């Protein structure tokens, strides 16, 4: 009987020691490689520049634009309303807390969509939810929205609408362009006709 108690105690102690020496398990939250690969293979994480612009103009409170480029590039030019989390500092506790807000759509972007995608992969591995990548990055955003090209006359109506949307969005962010300034000027350009009557020129007839 005593032996069995000893056996039980032995098992319990060995298990306890085993647990003591087990590697620290912080992988609980992390996405496993297979799932991460499946997520990488799924292009739904890419959001278009027009989509983002639409949400920016509508002041979507759930949208969080994250510029992962270095601070110098961020200060030179970035998408209005974006915050700058350089990719090297992505794993610091304060930034991870910011990214962990469950009710926000976090959209990463860089100049193209390579660095931002790398940031996305690391953050996806960390188990963050609702994270996206801006397709084409700032370069594409600038070239589609700010430098929107007027479609040809023969283009379908949708293309024209899209162009007008982009123009309006650009105006929203940076003020009006030349195109926008003109109508204001012409509207105020009322022609004022001042009719001067020559004093000595009265219709006074008479004999």
């Amino acid at each position, binding site marked *: *009987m005593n032996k*069995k*108690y000893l056996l*039980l105690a032995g*098992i319990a102690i060995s298990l306890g020691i085993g647990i003591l020496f087990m590697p620290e398990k912080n992988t609980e939250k*992390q996405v*496993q*490689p*297979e799932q*991460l*690969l*499946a997520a*990488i*293979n799924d292009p739904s994480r890419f959001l278009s520049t027009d989509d983002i612009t639409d949400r920016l103009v509508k002041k979507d409170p759930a949208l969080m634009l994250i510029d992962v*480029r270095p601070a110098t*590039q961020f200060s*030179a*030019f970035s998408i209005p309303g974006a915050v700058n989390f350089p*990719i*090297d500092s*992505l*794993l610091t506790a304060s930034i991870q807390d910011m990214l962990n807000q469950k009710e926000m759509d976090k959209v990463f972007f*860089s*100049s*193209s*969509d*390579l*660095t931002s*995608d*790398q940031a996305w*992969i*690391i953050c996806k*591995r*960390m188990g963050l939810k609702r994270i996206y990548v801006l397709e084409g990055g*700032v*370069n594409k955003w*600038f070239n589609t929205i*700010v*430098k929107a090209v007027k479609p040809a006359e023969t283009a379908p109506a949708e293309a024209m609408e899209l162009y007008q949307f982009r123009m309006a969005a*650009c105006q929203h962010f*940076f*003020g*009006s*362009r*030349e195109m926008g*300034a003109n109508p204001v*000027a012409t509207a*105020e350009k*009322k*022609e*004022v*006709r*001042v009719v*001067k009557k*020559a004093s000595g*020129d*009265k*219709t006074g*007839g008479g*004999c």
Partner: protein
Amino acid sequence: MEELNKTNRLTILVVAFVLVIIVGLITLRRPDVKYTLSPAESLGLLNDAALVVTPDQALTLMNDSGGKTVFIDVRNSVAFERSHVKNAINIPVRELFAPKSKSAFREIEKAGQIAVLYGETQQQANGPWLMLRQTGYKNVLMFTGRYAQLERNLADSLLKLLPQFSETPQIDTAALKSISASAGISPDVAKTEKKAVAPVKKTGSSGGGC
């Protein structure tokens, strides 16, 4: 009698205890693929120029690598069938951790070769490259260009025409300035143009007389 009963109970307890532990150990889900790098370590991979292959380097590697380099094509099998780099192995992105792919990578590692991942764009090779690096493959490099740059027939003719995606900012500051500048000027323009006064003089009235 009571003693015997007690012993039996104890035996059952010990057996059940051991059984539970054994079953637990057997059913413990052990993932096939595990991370060998921490997230911080994988973040450190990103700016390392030694882990990527530029288009120029790739072309020299293709010509004379001495069997040291194996090109891995991560595009789908249809694109691979159409054309691919000579002697390349096709491992589409979603089959990256399939047993077949794993054995292929293990062979490359054993032979002391270096695998260069390429896709339609660098973007496509980026994910697989990062995944392999994070799960412990140390001989995997990423090609930083598009597939078209590796294809000899296309390399000379189309190389310059293709839009290059790069991480250097391509912001046309002149265009931006013209927009914000015109926005600043526009009120003045409106003011000056506002008064377009066209004085009209009346000429000789219909002064009648006798």
